[in-house]
């Protein structure tokens, strides 16, 4: 079982993740060509200006008004991306298979970053359950996406600390990671892919076409 989930399934997950993402982006761009406004309105300068104001925390008025959400959201997303990519245990596997490696985060810090992701998930869950606006636009899919995101980190945490049933948890952990990768291009987790584009377009329309700003 372990050989299967850590071998062929990893390949499959990455192929679907990368292929699916490329297809989604290609489909979006070709659909945008059908509209007469999207491409003529794009401007590199204003796209970058918008991104700079929205990927740096507190660099726009709205984030300044919502400090707690901003801090949690940034910490969550940064840890979500960096932890799996720079985790020593992941890099060891990569080194064994392909003999390539890169900088790793010390395990102690990675452990805390995992906790940050889990806390972030709890925070988002809490908002979904309590904020009336969010509640009103929440359905099963939103909880499912949250679960898909949280599971690799929860299982990763348990596996690292070898709290119980190490082998089983490890297999679940790998599977959860694979599910998340596969889900990214085909669910609303795709905001990971599209965020840059929607931001760039709105920034371009506001800046390049409408001579204003979007932050």
């Amino acid at each position: 079982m372990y050989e299967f989930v850590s071998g062929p399934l990893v390949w499959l997950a990455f192929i679907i993740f990368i292929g699916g993402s490329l297809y989604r982006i290609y489909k979006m761009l070709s659909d945008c060509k059908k509209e007469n406004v999207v491409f003529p309105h794009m401007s590199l300068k204003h796209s970058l200006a918008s991104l700079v104001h929205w990927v740096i925390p507190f660099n726009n008025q709205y984030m300044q008004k919502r400090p707690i959400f901003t801090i949690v959201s940034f910490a969550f997303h940064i840890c979500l991306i960096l932890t799996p990519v720079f985790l020593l245990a992941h890099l060891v596997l990569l080194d064994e298979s392909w003999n390539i490696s890169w900088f790793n985060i010390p395990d102690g810090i990675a452990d805390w970053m995992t906790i940050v992701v889990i806390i972030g998930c709890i925070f988002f869950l809490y908002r979904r359950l309590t904020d009336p606006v969010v509640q009103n636009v929440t359905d099963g899919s939103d909880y499912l996406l949250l679960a898909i995101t949280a599971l690799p980190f929860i299982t990763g945490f348990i596996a690292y600390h070898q709290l119980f049933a190490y082998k089983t948890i490890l297999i679940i952990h790998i599977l959860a990671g694979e599910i998340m990768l596969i889900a990214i291009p085909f669910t609303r987790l795709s905001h990971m892919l599209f965020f840059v584009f929607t931001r760039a377009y709105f920034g371009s329309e506001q800046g390049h076409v409408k001579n204003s700003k979007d932050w």
Partner: protein
Amino acid sequence: MKPTIVKREPVVDDALDQCEARLTEEEIEKVINEVIDKETGGRLWTYVNTCIHCGLCAEACHWYLSNDRDVSFAPVTKVKDTIWVMLEKKGKVDAAFIKRCSQIAHTECNLCRRCGMYCPFGIDIAYMLLVVRRICAKLGMVPLYLQDTVHSHAATMNQMWVKPDEWIDTLQWQEEEAQGYVPSARLPLEKEGAEIMYSVIGPEPKFLAQLLGNITVIMKVAGLDWTMPATAGWDNSNMAMYSGDFEIMARVERLHHETAQRLKVKKIVMGECGHAFRGAQYDGPTWMGWMKPPIPIVHAIEFYYDLIKSGRIKIAKKAEGPITSQYPCNVIRNAGLGSKLQYIMSAVCENFVDLIPNDRHAFCCNAGGGTINCGPPWKKLRVQSARLQSENFKRTGAHTIVTPCHNCHSGVEDIVDKYKLGMHVKFFSELLIEAMEIPEHLKPKEEEAE
């Protein structure tokens, strides 16, 4: 997803009620899919599939904030209750649903685009609600009063059923009025090759004619070469853009631009109106595939800024006391004229008290986006939902609110009235005409004055 709990007082709008009785589900399905397949593309799909349902847009919306955070007014809810359902059910919805869509998109959203600015992903929610308006308009589901203005555009090429002779009469009358201040002032009609074509919105000749007199004086004092058309094409307003009837919108915008081309002017200067600028500068040209207006368009704020900054108009006596200004969405947030408005306000006012929030973060007057044109049936909720901005006005302690936009002017008058603010509402040109210096040689001579 659970249905939104919606609490509204019942509103009778004959057009919506009759349309609901007439529409068939086949027709609805056909139109929804036609608009989505042929008139939208990657944007709509990406917006709907990128939205992570975080609800952060709610805090941006004055409807939501003014109605004690009633969830049914939040931008994301408006999208959930309209376009999400249409997409999910592939157009298989009933007439009552389309009626509710019109109510949401036409009467409970100003397309002010503040929510887009506060979405972390930059999802343009107002664009999606404009798509909903488009679908409603193609089905004939448009509030009665709004549709009436669209009929007026279609039949007369102006918004207010102004007849051709009334138009010319009004201009000549206002030329005479202007000559009371500056005897040599002229309102030149049909002057081919003039530098500037000045265009206004339908309500100016209909019931705000003094504004035409004001501009005649201002143009003379500034020494500008200008003209106005004597034919249809003088009206730069466009309610068809807001109902969703883009075919009529395009006719109106095309005639406006072609009139300027016929007069061979170098630029169009437009009166103090926000949506007219949006239509002439953006929505019209993009719908027609021109992308940009063929002749540059200058909004009144920018025009007055240039005149004051360059010294062509000098200020003799600044208006006294605290005065504030509304920031019209379509020329501030969506055209970047905020700092120029602050400049001209400071130039003519002794004590310009700025709104908080100001500039592109300022809230809508809640009349824009065609909502005020939906007429009396919808007025109560509209003014009630401007409570937030009424509090912002009150905090300034101003005696006058300047509104460089016609929609704002009417909307702010409603706010002042309902919330008993006791403030005056004026256009910028009304302040300027009082404050500016009229050079000696232009003033009426003593004996003529007597």
